[in-house]
């Protein structure tokens, strides 16, 4: 017993390190890539303001007012096109990362603009990501460039469906998995959102097919795609609130 005690005393720093490291890794596992909660909202308030200021300084002298007005108009028109009940809010990206495994972005619209977690973020080129946390004036979102997220995609407007993922390497390419070998796919085909996850409306471009490879270990194809959105230069986006689908109630005549 005394030997055990001496061993613990001798290695108390290392033991404390292991305990604290376990807490830190638990924090990473629980929140990494899905930052939510009070601290995130608190931090989002002032880091969002600072990022917005940085963006403003960086873009002084540009046709700011015209751009905002056009983006707002574009958001509303796009929302109407995508879903007759969808409601669009124009926003500006004030910070985005694309170099990490779990990336995020901040936009200058928040709870006071009716932005809520779960809403889709798109831009003129295609799908960007979804909102996960909101402050009064800012919202935090996760882009397609996130190794722990999967998105539902369809090749062409009526083609095969698969999981769209990012493997954490180059910021401009993603992969589509679980595609049957019999699928007809051509380089250059567009991969659209399916609307199945309740985040994006259907038929928003996610990427374009670059090449198709056969998986040696199974019967499926992997489709390599180039993202529709250039995450490095994204600026104006639209946040879409797509109303929940009404519950399906089969009529007696269908049975």
């Amino acid at each position, binding site marked *: 017993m005394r030997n055990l005690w001496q061993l613990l005393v001798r290695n*108390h*720093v*290392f033991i*404390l*390190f292991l305990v*604290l*490291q376990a807490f*830190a*890794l*638990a*924090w*990473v596992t*629980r*929140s*990494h*890539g899905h*930052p939510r909660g009070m*601290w*995130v909202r608190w*931090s989002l308030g002032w*880091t969002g303001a*600072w*990022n917005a200021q*940085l963006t403003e300084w960086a873009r002084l002298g540009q046709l700011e007012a015209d751009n905002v007005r056009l983006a707002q108009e574009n958001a509303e028109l796009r929302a109407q096109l995508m879903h007759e009940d969808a409601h669009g809010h124009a926003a500006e990206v004030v*910070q985005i*990362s*694309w*170099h*990490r*495994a*779990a990336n*995020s972005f901040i936009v200058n619209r928040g709870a006071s603009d009716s932005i809520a977690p779960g809403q889709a973020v798109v831009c003129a080129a295609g799908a960007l990501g979804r909102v996960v946390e909101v402050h009064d004036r800012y919202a*935090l979102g996760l882009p397609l460039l996130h*190794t722990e997220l999967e998105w539902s995609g369809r090749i062409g407007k009526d083609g095969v469906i698969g999981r769209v993922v990012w*493997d*954490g*390497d*180059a*910021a401009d390419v993603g992969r589509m998995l679980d595609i049957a070998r019999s699928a007809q796919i051509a380089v250059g085909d567009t991969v659209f959102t399916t609307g199945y996850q309740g985040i994006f409306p259907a038929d928003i471009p996610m990427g374009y097919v670059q090449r198709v490879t056969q998986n040696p270990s199974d019967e499926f194809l992997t489709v390599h795609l180039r993202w529709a959105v250039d995450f490095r230069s994204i600026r104006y986006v639209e946040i879409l609130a797509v109303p929940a689908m009404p519950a399906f109630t089969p009529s007696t005549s269908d049975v």
Partner: protein
Amino acid sequence: MEGTLRTLLRFLLAWLAQTFVFHHLVLLDGWITPLFSLYALVLLPLRWRPIAYLLIGGAMGVLTDLSTFGGGLFTAAGLMSGLLQPWIARLLAPREGYEADATPDAGALGWGWMLAYTFLVVWAHALWLFLVEAGRWDLIPKALGQSASSAALTTVLILGVRSLFNQNRSQR
């Protein structure tokens, strides 16, 4: 007392600089990620008790995580560099050892020592940060490369700022 205040001020400034400036200066798709919050950690006195480096490294990591949406990554990395910092100091100790109140100082210990010490502490931090962040075996080679390049840049940054402060002090 003055030394403690200066150390606290240094931590505050390093944290603010990391949060408001260097967090936004990530270059080459993440291959150059400045970790300036380590500035104050690297300059801690060399003969404190090992547990102090561990706790201070962890606390600095928590602060950085909260202000940059790190989600625990900087805490894990701060604990790792805090654990290894006394060991690195021992590894690089001169034959006669350090004086009781020794601090990392190029004037007293030489630029070669300063460079090696700063790089190793920063690399320990960056390596753990990028490895935990990668979270997958196939991303480990990239994490190794990113940690080495980011540690090299951060070392240059820390030594550059340090030499500026030293220059100002010697001019006064």
